[in-house]
């Protein structure tokens, strides 16, 4: 019999906030002690900062715990035992899983997991999938290349744990994947927002029918902020005729946030498994009030091999004002991840977030799904080039669309752009994380 509860674990997901806070503090103390006692990286980091785990008595002490970054991991992993070095908290022979970060910001970080960690990964993802309505009756198709990147590996294992039937669409190409979805009558999909749009486009162009005819009911997106961008979410939903959910995770952290079926306009933080702090981008001062953007700092409470404790993600977020109507007491990050602190850059003296451009592009029905942003310098002046694809049906209205696009961009970003219209299908397509923002200015 399939349980009827909407919660994977009501004990934790509906726990009163003051109890949740007690649980989090106890878990934080435990993992800080674990890192200090088990890893040379954390011990050195803490000793250099003059911090000892015994000093962490209450929430007021949290700022004493030094933050950790990818660079700390990279340096620690240059040492023995290869390849995890001084970041490792367990004997090497207890490691059963290897993954790595994509390396878009430098040398990839290697991520070891014990079997218990791997169980934990799928446990965290089970919270995600159950909240999105995945049930044992679902046949879940995973159209991603199973490889060294953690991507949807844990989604696969969690779907199995829930009792779903899981189809690994690994090395198939996009057309083959679409045909397999059709043949097996899959009901749910997981992928990056970019690839979900790419698949829908391929379905229409190469197979000659709309993706919505495939019968997919649920799509879980991750890897990019897109599924929390209203225009992108709507496009994916309409293209597939499916309910679209956002989820947030990271290789070093785990799957830490998810959207429920009540769609709260953001993602619930799994506060039983993770601590999410928002801090000021410049000063690292804590941000507790809703509506104020800050940098996301994450702690995974229960990971053994290489725990992340106050990990500076450089992602941006803001707390929602209201609790979700779903009954979960877990806090909500409004709009999911709102971009990257290292993409938040000044252009023509104005603070600029590339994600704001996606909101504009994807909200205009005359434009295709893809776009590219290039910031460059002409003489002493910054210049932003926005490349978009105009759909053929609107070719005759190009100037009207150009004016509307420019107007919306000014409204949302306070900046003027050089707009380039490219033929449909000519801008790069991506399967995993898209790289649409390029800052080519000499200092960048």
């Amino acid at each position, binding site marked *: 019999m399939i349980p009827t509860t909407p919660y994977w*674990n009501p*004990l*934790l997901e509906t*726990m009163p906030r003051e*109890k949740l806070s*007690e*649980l989090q503090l*106890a*878990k934080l103390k*435990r*993992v800080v002690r*674990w890192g200090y006692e088990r890893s040379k990286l954390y011990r050195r980091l803490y000793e250099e900062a003059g911090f000892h785990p015994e000093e962490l008595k209450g929430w007021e002490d949290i700022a004493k715990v030094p933050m950790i970054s990818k660079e700390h991991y990279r340096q620690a992993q240059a040492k023995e035992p290869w390849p995890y070095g001084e970041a490792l908290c367990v004997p090497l022979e207890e490691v059963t899983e290897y993954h790595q970060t994509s390396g878009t910001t430098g040398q990839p970080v290697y991520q070891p997991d*014990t*079997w*218990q960690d*791997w*169980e*934990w990964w799928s*446990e965290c993802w089970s919270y995600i999938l159950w909240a999105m309505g995945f049930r044992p009756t679902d046949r879940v198709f995973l159209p991603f290349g199973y490889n060294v990147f953690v991507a949807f590996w844990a989604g696969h294992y969690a779907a199995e744990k829930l009792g779903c039937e899981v189809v690994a669409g690994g090395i198939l190409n996009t057309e083959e994947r679409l045909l397999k979805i059709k043949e097996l009558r899959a009901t749910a999909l997981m992928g990056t927002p970019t690839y979900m749009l790419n698949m829908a486009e391929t379905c229409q162009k190469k197979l000659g029918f709309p993706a919505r005819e495939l019968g997919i009911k649920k799509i879980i997106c991750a890897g990019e902020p897109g599924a929390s961008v209203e225009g992108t979410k709507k496009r994916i939903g309409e293209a597939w005729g499916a309910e679209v959910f956002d989820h947030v995770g990271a290789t070093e952290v785990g799957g830490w946030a998810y959207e429920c079926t009540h769609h709260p306009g953001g993602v619930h933080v799994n506060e*039983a*498994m993770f601590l999410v702090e928002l801090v000021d981008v410049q000063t690292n001062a804590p941000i507790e009030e809703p509506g104020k953007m800050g940098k996301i700092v994450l702690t995974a409470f*229960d990971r*053994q091999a290489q725990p992340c404790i106050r990990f500076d993600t450089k992602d941006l977020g803001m707390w929602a004002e209201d609790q979700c109507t779903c009954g979960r007491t877990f806090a909500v990050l409004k709009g999911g991840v709102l971009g990257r602190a290292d993409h938040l850059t000044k252009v023509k003296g104005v603070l600029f977030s590339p994600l704001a451009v996606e909101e504009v592009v994807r909200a205009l029905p005359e434009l295709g799904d893809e776009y590219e942003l290039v910031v460059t310098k002409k003489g002493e002046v910054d210049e932003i080039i926005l490349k978009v694809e105009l759909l053929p049906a609107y070719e005759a209205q190009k100037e009207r669309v150009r004016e509307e696009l420019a107007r919306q961009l000014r409204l949302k970003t306070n900046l003027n752009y050089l707009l380039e219209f490219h033929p449909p299908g000519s801008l790069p397509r991506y399967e995993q994380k898209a790289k649409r923002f390029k800052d080519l200015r000499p200092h960048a």
Partner: protein
Amino acid sequence: MPDPNLKEAASLIQNLRAAAIRLRELTEIPAVVRNAERILASVRMLELNVNEALAVLEGEESLARVG
């Protein structure tokens, strides 16, 4: 207050842990040792979901170790 059956669940989870640890110690047969190890990983997830949640809901001060 949480479902009273959960107290029994928490107790059974601790019995499972004790049984899996004992199983792991009883023999060197890899088929037993490694499967017991896997059971312990699942038991840990049960502890995170039930025992630790109950500990906080019922006001116990300390939580189990990591790992």
